[in-house]
């Protein structure tokens, strides 16, 4: 067994490309482990666990590329490193486009029709590129996180001055003129316009609207911090004005984690002045009911349903049959060991995770999470404690690697780890499909759950699993095909996140009866 490490200073590749390169070189004969990654702090930890943290790796900078290989022989290691270099030197396939500009300016010179910049660079470089794009008169979809609040504010003010839209930073999803940006779903065109400070919140609502035969006119992402005091809801207010004036939008939906109180007031005041009906879902706040043209809702599913009803849709939300629910409950209760008392929720979608936490927090008497602050903040991100629900799309898990919607390997490892814990009563998971997501995540998840159940069964335990799929039948992965694979693996597939969470809460609650 031998190892080989190559460091290429200041050679940048994005995390998805590096994940694909790693997968490709692992297929080389004689290779046991292979990693192509940027030298971030997180990635150095991963190299350390494989015994590859040499002094040179320790000294490398986050914008240096590392190719690390463990192989049976020197020759195999050499071949794998060469294969990695060859893979990464290939130009990206760009359809008919043969020229690859090296800047936004050059791209705009090449194609003057460009009106949107999609930016997903590491945060430290994102501000500069976003600012330049705005100066050139482009709208910006800013996927990058780790942009400072001060820079966010400056970008949003510049966007307003230029009368352009800046979605983000940390904007996961948008649907503009029928085009999905970032992680989006194939949703039918319709009359509901969304402005959202949450990525998977938009995906859940828009997918459910598709199910309800309504569809979406536009979905504008604002970035998660837009409704906080220091940003002032700048993008949200701009987006609301755009939707209010848009002839293709009849109903407006607003969704966000709880805003700063004064910003919430501003948003509500703006909405109340519009003639169109507005549905507001401030996740984590128990405001419901109606005030003039505004309806307040408490879950993402209820938000989609309320918007659909305003458009006279009589369709029902997707939901489990009572036969399936009862069978699940009975089987899970019958096979349960007394030690199995705790819920483990492992989410890829941040807003779906937040909704689960909000809906279950009081019911289960406290849940540890990386989204919590104070007593229930999960200090050790790699070990669960009692009831735990985690957002595995958070920076601490994703720095220098692909998001779990693209690369589910970190969550799969965590599932196997949870299976070893005799206290685990139930796994609650999401599966997000659509543009940008893994090509067949259900197959990987089903395989992982089968492995997890082999672990629990060897210990005389069962492992009940509830999954919510966020997506549509028109997504490339296809909702039905994904659901079938999960059902075949003995996993309960709920109709939406709120249903999955409610059922999980009900099961956990009855354990104490």
């Amino acid at each position: 067994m031998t190892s080989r490490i190559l460091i290429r200073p200041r050679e940048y590749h994005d995390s998805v490309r590096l994940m694909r390169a790693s997968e490709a070189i692992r297929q080389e004969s004689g290779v046991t482990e292979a990693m192509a990654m940027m030298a971030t702090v997180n990635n150095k930890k991963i190299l350390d666990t494989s015994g590859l943290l040499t002094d040179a790796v320790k000294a490398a900078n986050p914008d240096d590329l590392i190719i690390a290989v463990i192989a049976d022989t020197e020759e195999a290691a050499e071949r794998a490193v060469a294969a990695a270099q060859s893979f990464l030197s290939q130009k990206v396939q760009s359809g008919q486009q043969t020229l690859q500009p090296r800047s936004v300016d050059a791209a705009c010179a090449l194609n003057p029709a460009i009106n949107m910049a999609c930016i997903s660079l590491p945060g430290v470089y994102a501000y500069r590129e976003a600012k330049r794009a705005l100066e050139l008169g482009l709208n910006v979809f800013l996927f990058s996180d780790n942009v400072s609040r001060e820079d966010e504010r400056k970008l949003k003010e510049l966007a307003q001055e230029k009368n352009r839209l800046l979605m983000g930073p940390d904007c996961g999803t948008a649907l503009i003129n029928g085009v999905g940006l970032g992680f989006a779903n194939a949703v039918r065109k319709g009359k509901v316009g969304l402005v959202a400070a949450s990525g998977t919140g938009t995906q859940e609502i828009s997918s459910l609207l598709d199910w309800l035969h309504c569809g979406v006119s536009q979905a504008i992402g604002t970035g998660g911090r837009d409704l906080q005091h220091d940003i002032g809801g700048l993008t949200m207010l701009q987006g609301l004005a755009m939707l209010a004036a848009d002839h293709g939008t009849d109903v407006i939906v607003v969704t966000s984690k709880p805003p700063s109180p004064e910003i919430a007031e501003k948003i509500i005041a703006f909405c109340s002045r519009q003639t169109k009906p507005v549905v507001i879902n401030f996740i984590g706040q128990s405001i419901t009911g109606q005030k003039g043209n505004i309806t307040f809702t408490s879950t993402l599913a209820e938000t989609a349903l309320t918007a659909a009803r305003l458009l006279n849709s009589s369709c029902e939300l997707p939901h489990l049959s009572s036969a399936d629910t009862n069978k699940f409950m009975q089987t899970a209760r019958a096979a349960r060991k007394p030690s199995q008392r705790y819920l483990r929720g492992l989410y890829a979608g941040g807003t779906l995770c937040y909704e689960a936490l909000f809906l279950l927090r009081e019911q289960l008497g406290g849940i540890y999470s990386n989204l919590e602050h104070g007593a229930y903040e999960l200090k050790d991100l790699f070990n669960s404690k009692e009831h735990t629900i985690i957002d595995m799309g958070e920076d601490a898990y994703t720095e220098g690697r692909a998001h779990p919607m693209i690369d589910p390997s970190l969550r799969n490892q965590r599932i196997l780890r949870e299976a070893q814990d005799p206290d685990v009563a139930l796994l609650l998971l999401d599966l997000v499909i659509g543009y940008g997501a893994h090509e067949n995540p259900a197959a990987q998840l089903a395989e992982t759950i089968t492995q997890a159940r082999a672990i629990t069964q060897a210990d005389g335990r069962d492992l009940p699993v509830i999954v919510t799929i966020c997506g549509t039948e028109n997504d490339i992965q296809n909702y039905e095909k994904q659901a079938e694979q999960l059902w075949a693996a003995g996993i309960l597939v709920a109709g939406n996140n709120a249903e999955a969470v409610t059922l999980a809460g009900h099961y956990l609650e009855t354990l104490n009866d």
Partner: protein
Amino acid sequence: MTEQQPSPLFEQTLSVVNIGIDLFAETLRQQSVDVVQVQWSPPATQNEDLMNLLDSLL
């Protein structure tokens, strides 16, 4: 802001420049959207003053 005309974005055909993750350009091509991928690399220096000076000269 409310006095400003709303952005004309909804009236336009989307044409995108992608800077960063190639995958997002791929997903746009799947949707038959015109997209140009930038072959980006980190700037040689992160000295913001120097970069701003260069910007003003170019």
